[in-house]
């Protein structure tokens, strides 16, 4: 059983700053940088500290997303409710809709981490039928 | 032979002349109604309606034919109620069967804010002559037993609504034809396949039109070109607060007629009625992206069908026959724009957007009076183009966003 049962609120750090300053940030050890927009970066998990070469950078704990990990074997099922085509290369980060809910997806060799706005997470759980098999 | 084959109307097509007192550009409902009322009410018959396709080829032949006056602001209720009244007399007046059917409209809401809104609607309606009443869920059930009051397992529970007994439908093509024939019988020329490509001007004054069949001089030019108004008005140097958006609709196959009222839910985003031939006719809001495209989208079928089958479960098994789109002249305040433009000799009747079929009789009647008397009638004075300069807009988005 490779499908998650639910989305869990994700802990992360959000950095909005001048694009050049975000370009220079290195991936933390074992962590992930998700570039949501040229001026917008999500760091997973929240680093102890982070240097941003922009005095006006907004660096904030991010509690607005819920996330769940789907194994590779689940990809076809997710693709079938997506109007856009998943990337073939890994790792790759993509943003779009799944089952009509806005998501961010981080593709990896082993599967995909799906991030959804926490305020909509229950809809995606329902639409993907998560937790049903557990019942 | 089916009972709907046109067996009354007869057109007498004439040759295009080089000059008319009044040239109306656009052979949709509004252009033809203006011509019809000029001829029948004011004896003005040296009039030509120039239509680039066939008459009714624009939105007047593509709409979902809902006629109602249950608007949210006094000016609109008054105007549309006039049109509702004229519609109910149109068959008698023209002697033509337009399939006018007063079937009533149920406008459903799903929550307290919506309930308050529909109560407010019924108040302003009654104050200005429309018979809309607030209805409880139990009354909804009596008027339309097919509605699932606990729609979506309660997610879209019906908390009430407004009911407008006056609301009706009529066959769109037949309205167009009855008006065209009535005008032609009195001497008005209606020309199909006559596209206006430019305007003739003398100084600041518009003096006629250029067509793909040559120039035509006119005492007055009236633009009634529906979704294509921005281009024509630009030729006269008039800028209009209009954006063009597609609006889609679809019908199912034919079923024995038994579904009476028009049912709408703005909250869920669809409306439905059964046509005289028995098709279920469904529509929703405009496409968000401005465009002149007549292409349909599959998403439209989906986003219109889902709420429909949720609120009216019997629809689930009906088969979809055909979908289509029209392009609508959406004014910023979702109210029509009628009358003077500030350019001599150039009038408009526009901004009919997704709501203009119901306005055809009154719109034409009032425009004709304006042309004949050279004075703006009181009923449409609030709808003048000037309102945008004078900051007297007629916003009424809650009355026509989803149901047209």
């Amino acid at each position, binding site marked *: 059983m490779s499908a998650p049962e639910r989305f869990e609120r994700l802990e992360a750090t959000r950095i909005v700053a001048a694009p050049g300053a975000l370009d220079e940030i290195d991936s933390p050890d074992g962590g992930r940088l998700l570039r949501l927009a040229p001026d917008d970066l999500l760091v997973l998990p929240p680093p102890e500290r982070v240097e941003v070469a922009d005095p006006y950078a*907004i660096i904030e704990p991010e509690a607005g997303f819920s996330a769940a990990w789907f194994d590779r074997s689940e990809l076809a099922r997710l693709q079938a*409710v997506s109007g856009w085509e998943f990337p073939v290369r890994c790792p790759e980060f993509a943003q779009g809709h799944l089952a009509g809910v806005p998501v961010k997806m981080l593709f990896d060799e082993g599967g995909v981490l799906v991030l959804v706005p926490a305020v909509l997470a229950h809809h995606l759980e329902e639409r993907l039928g998560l937790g049903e098999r557990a019942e | *032979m*089916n009972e709907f084959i046109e067996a009354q109307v007869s057109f007498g097509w004439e040759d295009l002349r080089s000059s008319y007192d009044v040239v109306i550009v656009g052979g949709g409902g509004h252009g033809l109604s203006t011509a019809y009322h000029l001829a029948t009410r004011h004896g003005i018959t040296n009039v030509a309606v120039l239509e680039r396709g066939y008459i009714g080829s624009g939105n007047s032949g593509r709409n979902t034919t809902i006629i109602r006056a249950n608007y949210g602001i006094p000016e609109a209720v008054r105007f549309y109620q006039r049109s509702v009244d004229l519609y109910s007399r149109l068959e008698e007046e023209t002697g033509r069967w337009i399939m006018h059917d007063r079937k009533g409209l149920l406008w459903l809401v799903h929550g307290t804010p919506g309930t308050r809104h529909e109560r407010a609607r019924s108040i302003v309606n009654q*104050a200005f002559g429309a018979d809309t009443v607030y209805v409880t869920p139990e009354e909804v059930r009596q008027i339309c037993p097919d509605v699932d009051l606990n729609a979506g397992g309660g*997610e879209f529970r019906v908390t009430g609504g407004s009911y407008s007994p006056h609301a009706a439908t009529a066959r769109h093509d037949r309205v167009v034809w009855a008006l065209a024939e009535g005008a032609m019988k009195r001497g008005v020329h209606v020309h199909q396949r006559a596209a206006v490509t430019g305007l003739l001007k003398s100084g600041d004054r518009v003096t006629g039109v250029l067509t793909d069949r040559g120039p035509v001089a006119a005492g007055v030019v009236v633009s009634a070109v529906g979704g294509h108004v921005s281009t024509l008005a630009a030729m006269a140097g008039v800028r209009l607060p209009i954006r063009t958006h597609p609006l889609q609709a679809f019908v199912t196959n034919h079923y024995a007629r038994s579904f009476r009222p028009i049912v709408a839910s703005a909250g869920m985003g669809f409306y439905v009625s059964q046509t005289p031939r028995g098709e279920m006719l469904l529509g929703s809001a405009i496409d968000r992206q401005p465009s002149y495209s007549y292409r349909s989208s*599959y*998403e439209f079928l989906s986003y219109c069908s889902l709420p429909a089958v949720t609120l009216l479960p019997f629809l689930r098994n*009906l088969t979809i026959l055909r979908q289509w789109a029209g392009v609508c002249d959406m004014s910023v305040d979702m109210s029509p724009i009628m009358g003077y433009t500030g350019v001599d000799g150039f009038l408009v009747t526009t901004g009919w957007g997704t709501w203009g079929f119901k306005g055809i009789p009154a719109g034409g009647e009032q425009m004709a009076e304006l042309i004949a008397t050279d004075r703006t009638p009181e009923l449409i004075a609030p709808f003048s183009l000037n309102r945008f300069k004078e900051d007297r*807009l007629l916003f009424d988005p809650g009355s026509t966003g989803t149901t047209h």
Partner: protein
Amino acid sequence: MIDFEGTQVPFEEGDTVLTAVLRAGLWPWGGCLCSEGDCPYCLVTLEGVSYVRACRTPAVEGLKVAPHPSGGYPALPSSTPPPTGESAVGFEMVHCDTVVIGQGRSGRKAAAEARERGRRVVTLEARAGREAVGVYPGPEVVARTRDGMARIFSAEVVVATGSVELQPVCPGNQLTGILTRRAAERLAASGVDLGRAVSVGRPPEGVDCQPARGRLVRFEGEGTVERVVTVDDGTGAERTYSCDTAVVGLGSGPRDTLARMAHGLPGASSVGSAAGCLDRPPVPEEGVVCPCSEVTADDLRSVWNRGFRELELIKRSTLAGTGACQGAVCMPHVRSFVAAGGQELPPSFTARPVVTQITMGEAAAGWYHHPDRRTALHDEHLALGARMERSGGWLRPWTYEDADREYWAVRTGVSICDVSTLGKFLVSGPDADAFLERIYPTTITPLRPGRAKYVLALDERGYVFDDGLVCREGANRFLLTATSAGAGHFEMWLRDWAEAWGMDVRILDRTGSWGAINVTGPLSGELLSRLGAADRLPPFMGHTDMEVAGVACRVMRLSFTGEISYELHHQASRSRDLWRALMDSGADLYVWPHGLEVLEELRLEKGHILVGVDSLPDSTPRRLGHGWAVRMDKADFLGRLAVARTSRMELDKVLVGLEVDGDPPLQGAILRVKGDYAGFVTSSTWSRVLGRSVMLAWLQARDGGFGGDIMIDGRPARRVALPFYDPEG
């Protein structure tokens, strides 16, 4: 066995309902069957779904089939809601490079070629249960398969749908026992006994039948075809052929509805017969032309003579081509009819989806209702018995089913309210001050860190579309709030203007990341001090960062309710802890949450407007009585030009506060002055604390002023200054 109207019909592997029924010796359908899904003759009702073609339906055990009613339409299905647990329609989105519609010779060839080019190919073939429904911009092809609906997104669409055989138009063409040439071939091959078959035109292959010579004139018989009559065009002599089955090979035309739909879409093409020409049929003279709408050749002539002289006008005035087969049968003949009137063969009318009739239930598959957002406290509200309502795209507690308790908790004790839905935005950057000065109509720069200010948001037309607070966090950093309903749009709006003006700012939406709980009531300070916030609480319109119950909060002191209020902004991951701590520690203060219903009463008593409820889309600050929130001495701000222009005009309507004795008038109740319409009520409530009804209303100017006695529902209304409650604050 399948159940055909009570008759048990056996079937074999590979049978459709059509082949099984015909083989069983039943022939319940009139008209010339095509067996290819084009004609409207073999319609049946299947498991409650009408307008299903028997030739497209595989026979399966136990299937219940009813023939289409003759001379009428099927009844609307019953209104009973679907049984729960019923299996939903399958749905899938598919991504590929090439879709080939139709797997005849040219379709197979196109698919093979595409595969050779290394393309990922999806093929559709109606006969194999994979039917194209329509081609849409994208390009997107929608199909119905035996598993449900599929939306196929692809770079290329190849339409290879082949040809349609022409139908006979002549007297007797609605009799039973007529087949197209290809139908005869197919049915004979699947073992249907055609009896004595006579063919006109091109004869079928592999079917034992007698070819009739000459041109088809009519079919004769009682219900069933008994004779085929032809004429020799040279001599004018008629010949009659007796038969059990008549087979017509009258030529064909492209099956091009999908091709025409696809035409003009990038990546779309058509191949083979679908791209071919129509064998122009003779001008229809007699007989049914359009079977779906029962339009005869006489009918066509009749409307023509009435001046309906275009294909579209003929279609619309007779309804030919608008029935179940969407013109597949009649269109070639109607086009030929129009051409006989001296015109060229007109193009077919616009091809419209759908070509395969799907049910509305099928169309709804894969679609979802617009998702309501839920705050992190959703479950807490439910546990407290809240009734939830949709509001501004959120599900929010309307009441906790005891409005009295909610109200008095605020006015006399302490209450909490989940206001997480508030729009919350951080703005930082060297241009932050300059940016907000230009965004808002009030002065921003003098605002000190730790202080907040009420602001209106104006559009370019000078109309109020939102309101909120600006809080300064530091030299170049602000927190902005917006209404719950406006929040979704607000970030885009800020970013658009920052970009348009080239302002160096960073903008971050915190709406979903931060929860917010408003603690309000005379005892709110007491409750907060118990949770560790005693001496550091901010002054009115101030904000401080501190821990409350161990949760890091930005505490803002405001008063929307008319009582001392502290809004606690915090990480949404901690909302529940904070909420529970407030409820638990306040138990002996009788803390109780309030919902939107009571909040509306409270704010109304305090005279606060709700943008979107009390404001109209054309509300200028002046009309709203909010002129004080606009500083015209500022050089520039959004909407300034418009405000300057409109403020020179005579004021035509204003939002006013009114009171009446007795019950509150409804929202929308009409104001009258001397019997004339003078405006309407936007919000109203019975004020528990004041003992009268208070409301906001739009009052229209009369004779340039706002005087005169106002009546509402026949009761006198008093115009009063706002706020109604606690004017001294």
